[in-house]
């Protein structure tokens, strides 16, 4: 790849100073004159009909200004459920945490105390938490039409992908393995809880939202409140993380708007940490069944996976499973059944379909390699994808280099031993996993201006969720313009002056909006060449919409993860000793912040593997460990030093060859941990997370080696 001048070098964030001085204003830091605080009352029941809501005592509390319930608010929150009608306040309530009322008052204490004065009469209904249980005929119906959630086209059946012929594939196999894996609902747990502030100026609504996508949030709000889009302005200056749970408008945005309309003053709706865990969403739990066949030489002949995803009672996410696409195999069947349950809602959390699925898939693949007495690295090199679904060329692929160069740096050949061969109480093992993540391209916009003094102003509809997207956009503009980064002022986070961007999800900002920025810079350069630099207060403006396609090619980022850990065989304590993450995300626009992304994603994955689950009391359908303490989110003391390595392929469709980076870092982590645990102990834990009870249970059993 040709070296770049500005991009491609470690660069500090353009807003770093504000982030380290406490001057970056997050949504919750904002205050407006006369602003009211609002709090939500939520259902204590997993499934119940609301017979009555009596707000009279709450209304009478001095300082209470407005209360909304289903009795006086029938706003539909359409991005809270894309298949059914989900109101702000639902009846019946369908999970412990479903909103019943929202109270606005002069301060948050009064608002909170007022929620406690609301008397709700419930008629409790039978509930079901587990996806497979929910499909049984005797299960309570959670949504009209049944618990099998419809697909995009409204069909109520499993979504299936097939190629080849499974029967022929299994018939050709020398060995066939079947197994079952279970993953847990776990939470995004971003540090900034969801918060919304809304106020009206006539018919125009302004919402300050903690959102990953101001444009999506704006269109969602306009649709649900039946407003012209141009009457809605969404602002998010600084955003305290999301990892997928702030993609769209949240019900709090709508509640704030409705309450502000009623009271005529700004209203701030705040979620507590526990509400953020229970009432926003977490990753969908999946029960996965694998059946895999291979020949003696390691060639895969058949790969079947069936998954059952628990979506909670509303359909906010896809519920799909990823992973098999990184394997070359003639006969494949992948099916996923998405199911309504009375658990908390499931939707996007970083690489939504991947880390739990790859955990199951890569565990089975490791077991096959073991049975065939193959090194797992060689097994993967043999079977790794060359073409997407064995038929479509990739726009760029560095998977083999990820595996080979990663293995070399990790000293895989030296560290790997046959599973379970270590002896003694402290047993070391290494594990690996490979993965991919779709790196799509699509519609986005950018506006770039230049003034007389040679200062450039870039307008992009990003909020920067922590990925350094603003800095990345600035670097891309500076590179194309051939000016220093300091010459580019980036404007973001306000729909009033920032054009459409897809929203910071799916790892799309660099590929989507980055392409717009390149195009805007090109057009602006052309204008400058034609007209010369502007004079006085004149400006030249390039406003572009780009909508590239991949010309029939598949576009993927790839990765290989390598983990070494140590298991204390009597206490079940697992210590991560070494972790190497190798990524092909195309050109790395900013090596400094990219390393942050990868290290952070890996550690989130380690925490997912070892700790995290929103645990329910099964008899009452109530979550009992929401929050950082309960979820055992990893702390400073838990983390190893994560080594990173980039295989920079030159992708023809990304800005300067860049592909997706935000989501992939978590994809293979859980699997690499699981395989390292297997390598160390000869046992498998097949259900996430690897909590102490499950680990000691597994260690107490005989080794599973063939």
């Amino acid at each position, binding site marked *: 790849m040709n070296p770049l001048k500005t991009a491609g070098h470690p660069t500090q964030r353009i807003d770093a100073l504000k982030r380290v001085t406490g001057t970056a204003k997050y949504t919750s830091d904002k205050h407006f004159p006369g602003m009211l605080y609002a709090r939500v009352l939520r259902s204590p029941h997993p499934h119940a009909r609301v017979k009555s809501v009596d707000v009279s005592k709450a209304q009478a509390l001095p300082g209470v200004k407005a209360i909304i319930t289903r009795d006086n608010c029938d706003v539909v929150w359409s991005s809270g459920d894309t298949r059914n009608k989900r109101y702000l306040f639902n009846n019946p309530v369908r999970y412990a945490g479903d909103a019943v009322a929202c109270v606005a008052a002069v301060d948050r204490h009064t608002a909170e105390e007022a929620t406690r004065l609301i008397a709700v009469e419930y008629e409790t209904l039978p509930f079901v938490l587990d996806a497979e249980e929910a499909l049984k005929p005797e299960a309570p119906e959670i949504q009209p039409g049944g618990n099998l959630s419809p697909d995009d086209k409204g069909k109520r059946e499993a979504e299936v992908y097939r190629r080849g012929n499974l029967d022929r594939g299994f018939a050709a196999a020398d060995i066939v393995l079947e197994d079952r894996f279970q993953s847990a609902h776990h939470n995004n747990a971003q540090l900034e809880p969801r918060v919304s502030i809304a106020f009206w100026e006539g018919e125009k609504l302004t919402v300050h939202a903690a959102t990953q996508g101001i444009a999506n949030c704006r269109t969602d709000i306009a649709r649900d409140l039946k407003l012209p889009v141009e009457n809605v302005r969404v602002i998010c200056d600084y955003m305290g993380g999301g990892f997928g749970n702030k993609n769209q408008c949240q019900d709090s945005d709508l509640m704030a708007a409705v309450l502000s309309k009623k009271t005529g003053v700004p209203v701030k709706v705040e979620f507590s940490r526990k509400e953020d865990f229970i009432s926003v969403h977490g990753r969908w739990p999946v029960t996965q069944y694998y059946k895999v066949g291979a020949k003696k030489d390691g060639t895969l002949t058949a790969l079947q996976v069936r998954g059952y995803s628990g979506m909670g009672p509303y359909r906010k996410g896809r519920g799909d499973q990823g992973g098999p696409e990184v394997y070359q195999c003639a006969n494949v069947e992948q099916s996923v059944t998405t199911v309504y349950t009375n658990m908390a809602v499931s939707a996007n959390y970083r690489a939504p379909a991947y880390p739990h699925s790859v955990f199951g898939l890569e565990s089975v693949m490791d077991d096959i390699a073991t049975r065939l007495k193959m090194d797992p690295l060689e097994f993967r090199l043999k079977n790794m994808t060359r073409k997407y679904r064995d038929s479509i060329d990739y726009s760029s692929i560095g998977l083999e280099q990820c595996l080979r160069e990663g293995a070399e740096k990790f000293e895989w050949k030296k560290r790997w031993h046959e599973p379970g061969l270590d002896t003694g109480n402290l047993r070391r093992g290494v594990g690996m996993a490979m993965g991919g993540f779709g790196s799509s391209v699509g519609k986005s916009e950018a506006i770039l201006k230049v003034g007389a003094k040679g200062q450039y102003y870039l307008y992009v509809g990003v909020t920067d969720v922590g990925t350094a997207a603003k800095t990345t956009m600035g670097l891309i503009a500076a590179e194309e313009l051939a000016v220093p980064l300091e010459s580019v002022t980036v404007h973001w986070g306000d729909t009033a002056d920032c054009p459409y961007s897809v929203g910071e999800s799916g790892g799309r900002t660099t590929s989507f909006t980055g392409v717009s920025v390149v195009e805007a810079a090109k057009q602006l350069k052309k204008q400058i060449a034609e007209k010369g630099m502007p004079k006085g207060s004149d400006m030249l403006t390039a406003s572009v919409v780009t909508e590239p396609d991949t010309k029939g090619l598949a576009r993927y980022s790839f990765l290989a993860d390598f983990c070494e850990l140590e298991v204390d065989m009597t*206490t079940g304590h697992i210590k991560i000793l070494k972790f190497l993450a190798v990524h092909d995300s195309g050109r790395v626009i900013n090596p400094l912040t990219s390393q942050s992304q990868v290290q952070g994603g890996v550690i989130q994955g380690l925490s997912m593997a070892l700790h995290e689950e929103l645990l329910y009391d099964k008899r009452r359908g109530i979550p009992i460990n929401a929050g950082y303490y309960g979820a055992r989110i990893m702390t*400073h003391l838990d983390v190893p030093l994560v080594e990173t390595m980039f295989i920079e392929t030159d992708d023809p469709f990304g800005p300067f060859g860049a592909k997706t980076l935000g989501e992939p870092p978590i994809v293979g982590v859980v699997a690499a941990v699981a395989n390292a645990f297997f390598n160390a102990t000869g046992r498998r834990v097949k259900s996430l997370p690897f909590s102490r009870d499950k680990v000691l249970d597994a260690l107490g059993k005989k080794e599973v080696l063939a």
Partner: protein
Amino acid sequence: MRAFANATPKNLADAVEQVKQAKQNQKSVAIAGGGSDLLVMVKDHLASPDVIVHLAAMKGNDKVIESAGVVKIGGLITLDALSRHPLIREKYTALAEAAGVVGTPQIRNAGTLAGNVCQRPWCWYFRNGFPCFKAGGNQCFSAAGENQLHAIFGGGPSFIVHPSDTAPALVALDAKFHITGPAGERTVAAADFFTLPKVNAAKENSLADGEILAWVEIPAAKRGTRSMYHKELDREAWTHAIVSTAVVLEMDGATCRSARIVMGGVAPIPWRVPEAEKLLVGQRVTPELAVKIGETALIGATPLAKNRYKVPLAKEIVRRTVAAVAAKA
């Protein structure tokens, strides 16, 4: 948060008086040491005080005083100060180590010894508003529910585990608790301070209404005495012990003269294991004996459906800690 008034006592007697007065005025009272946990409980509506008596405001009850070998520790010493105190680190290592692994640095900077000993349970049912024994109700939801972290000894009708790290260390060090209250002062052995649920399922200790754990007394350490506290966590910081143990051995060369072994995280009270202790007296602490100590410590354990793993885990933790204390120079 509900409204309440803060009260700032000048000294212990004043604190007791303020509690008494508030009660006479029909006010409910909560006593705050560092406040880290009390305020969480108020926010979660697990405590609903009209008045919070803030003990940390008063001066002088946070000292470590040694006289004639006996050490007195003010109940309001912060866990951080306790964990760093040279005398405690040297002579009562288990206590310093226990104080040093509570929560996080921020909690140890605010939290007090008395507060740590007297803290309410961290059972997830109690903390999530279930109407259990500890919340004034009449059932334990963990018994047939999610009991991964619950008691394997001494449970029933409530199956909480005592959450304190310092409590097992204090019982192992044979501490006495000096308590002051409306009826005057009293002293109780640390081992007798804690209450099994079969005696009173609503409470964890014998503090009467309005009583305050004022200070802690630890007898002079006999020559050759050494101790350790080991805490097994399910992440490396800020959880309560899954299993812990405080081991105090009085050694004469390689021979053990006397022993006290107390486990945490396994019972509703710090769980002392006298049968295991007896096996050590007059013996050299061989690896084989350490194994036997671990086995003996867990005799009689009655695990619930999801916490069977605690039995082998606790055996191992006791074995290791006994061996490690014996091997200490």
